[in-house]
């Protein structure tokens, strides 16, 4: 064995020892600074992180809408307040060069965002009212866990209800409009949360129009009977009803408005006229006005 080979062996052995020492130190250091956090934390409940070692270190917490930087004493418990963990989502904790992640989950349902469409529907129509509910906790986090949502539609004293379970925080239902027109109260509720919307159920097109005509001081007064849709609802006031009188002098038209269920118009005096009535695409009866009768 030469002197040179002995020197090489000594050098190799020294390097191995240093490497082993470094590995041990790394292992010890890693073990000493490991961050223990639970996998999930309910929103707004706070979190306590145990720490070991000594001296001070810098804690970083990054999450949805949250960024915290704080100097902490190692070896003591680190407390994250309830107001610091309100937003649901993934959080990353970094302490003294080590990191850990946890999720903040939404709390119990506290509020509902409720979309009711449309705001006006014809009465007596199936599957025409749509309600969509988004459930949130008290920090406005969408509650992703399945939750029951009750949809309740009350119109003219009759209530229809249906319970649906949320999927990814959303539940929806389609309901029929009631036979009678009027404002329908549409309520979505889940837990303590409840939201009300108003859906106006309105009459459809007139089912038929029937009019009569009488002599008037200024001419001919044409008047309809009460106008209803095919479900028996009075057609909305303000709906246009067109009266037409045709005689030798030409054609006369009056676009009258339904008021309190009926429409009337004053047509020019004539001894021989044909009087007709229509509203939209619905045509009513025709009167042959002869000799003022």
């Amino acid at each position, binding site marked *: 064995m030469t002197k040179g080979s002995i020197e090489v062996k000594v050098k190799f052995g020294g390097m191995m020892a240093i490497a082993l020492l470094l590995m041990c130190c790394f292992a010890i250091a890693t073990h000493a600074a490991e961050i223990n956090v639970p996998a999930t934390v309910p929103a707004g409940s706070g979190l306590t992180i145990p720490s070991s070692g000594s001296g001070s270190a810098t804690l970083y917490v990054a999450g949805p809408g949250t960024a915290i930087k704080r100097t902490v004493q190692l070896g003591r418990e680190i407390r994250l307040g309830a107001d610091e963990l309100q937003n649901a989502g993934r959080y990353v904790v970094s302490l003294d060069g080590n990191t850990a992640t946890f999720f903040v989950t939404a709390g119990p349902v506290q509020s*509902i*965002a*409720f*979309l*009711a*469409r*449309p*705001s*006006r529907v014809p009465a007596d129509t199936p599957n025409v009212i749509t309600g969509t509910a*988004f459930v949130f906790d008290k920090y406005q986090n969408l509650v992703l866990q399945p939750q029951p949502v009750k949809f309740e539609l009350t119109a003219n004293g009759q209530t229809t209800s249906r319970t649906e379970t949320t999927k990814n925080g959303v539940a929806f239902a389609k309901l029929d409009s009631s036979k009678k027109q009027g404002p329908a109260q549409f309520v979505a509720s889940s837990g303590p949360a409840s*939201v009300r*919307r108003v859906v106006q159920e*309105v*009459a459809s*097109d007139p089912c038929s129009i029937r009019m009569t005509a009488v002599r008037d001081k*200024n001419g001919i007064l044409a008047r309809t009977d009460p106008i209803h849709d095919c479900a028996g609802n009075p057609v*909305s*006031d*303000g*709906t*246009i009803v067109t009266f037409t009188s045709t005689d030798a*002098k*030409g*054609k*006369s*038209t*009056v*676009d*009258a*408005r339904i*008021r*309190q269920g009926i429409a009337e*118009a*004053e*047509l*020019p005096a004539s001894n021989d006229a044909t009087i007709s009535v229509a*509203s*939209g695409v619905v045509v009513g009866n025709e009167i042959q006005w002869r000799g003022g009768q």
Partner: protein
Amino acid sequence: MKRALPILIIVLTAVLIAMATIQPNELTPATSPDGAVRALFDHVKARDYKGAFAYVANSGDTEEQAFAADLAGRDGSLRTYSSLEQADTKVLHASDNEALVRATLQYATAVGAFYDTRDLKVVREGDRWKVEWPVVQEANVPPQVIQENYLRWDVITRGSNDDWGAQNVEAPRVRIISMNAIAQGANTIIVGEIENEDTVPGFVSVGATLIGKNGDVLGEETSFDKISHTLLPKEISPFRIDFPKTPLATVKSVRMTPNSMLVPASADPVIGVVHQRVETDSRGRHVLKGELINESGVTVNIPHVLATYYDGAGKVIWVSDGYVDNALLPQAPVPFAVDLRDDPASNVHNYRVTVNEYMLQQDE
């Protein structure tokens, strides 16, 4: 000599001032029938109704106030927002003592040019000609109480404090129920009808886009005032959209865009359109004539007449419109006339007249 020039200048200045200040008591007499009509309307142009009235022959029958009201307008009518721009005269026939002169008047108004044609009888009084102004029978509405069941829609829209899920009240459902593209020379005209199918009033407008053979956009226009913008439930309005200098042969398709908006509205006033008939006027043109009767108790200041013409199959073949320059007083008939082009006139099988109303703010 040095003083003569200043004195001359002073005297000349005094004479000129006197000439400018002192006006003749009598207006220049008209020596010809059309001269009388032209002189009358020259004074109307200058809004000098007193001067114009000096050319009126039957001064005993016509009051100066009524004459001025006839030409200047009243009750907030369109005429009150107009001024006479041009008056062309043409002698239709003349004798030694009387003549008939046609005056074609062009007014500048708030809604564009407005044309009026009057055939005026002109008579000789001594050495001058004067116009026999037709006596205008002013609508006399007797004092009365007209009961109104006040029907009105108001809208409460979503507020800033409502949560984001709170639904707003939706715009009314409207539908274009007919549409027809017409070639008029080098122009393309889109006519049709739109219906408010909802139970609430709506403010509607119709837009059209012409698509060329290569898929390129040839033009975009809206109906502007050729439509009734405020439609009550189940009300149908005609519309017309003009594309000048765009031949129909270059158009591959038309994209229609009906727009609607929920607006507060009143169901009043109700305007009857009576005695509608298509006639030929003195110039040989087709006109749709009739009378408007305001069946409500409020004055309609500016009526706007829209006429829809249908062929035998019920298809809309033309839409014409015209403003009426008289206000509609309650229960008082007012005549109207709108032009009908000659080419569709022969195919017109039926027609429908609707009226837009514009009213000045009134104290409720």
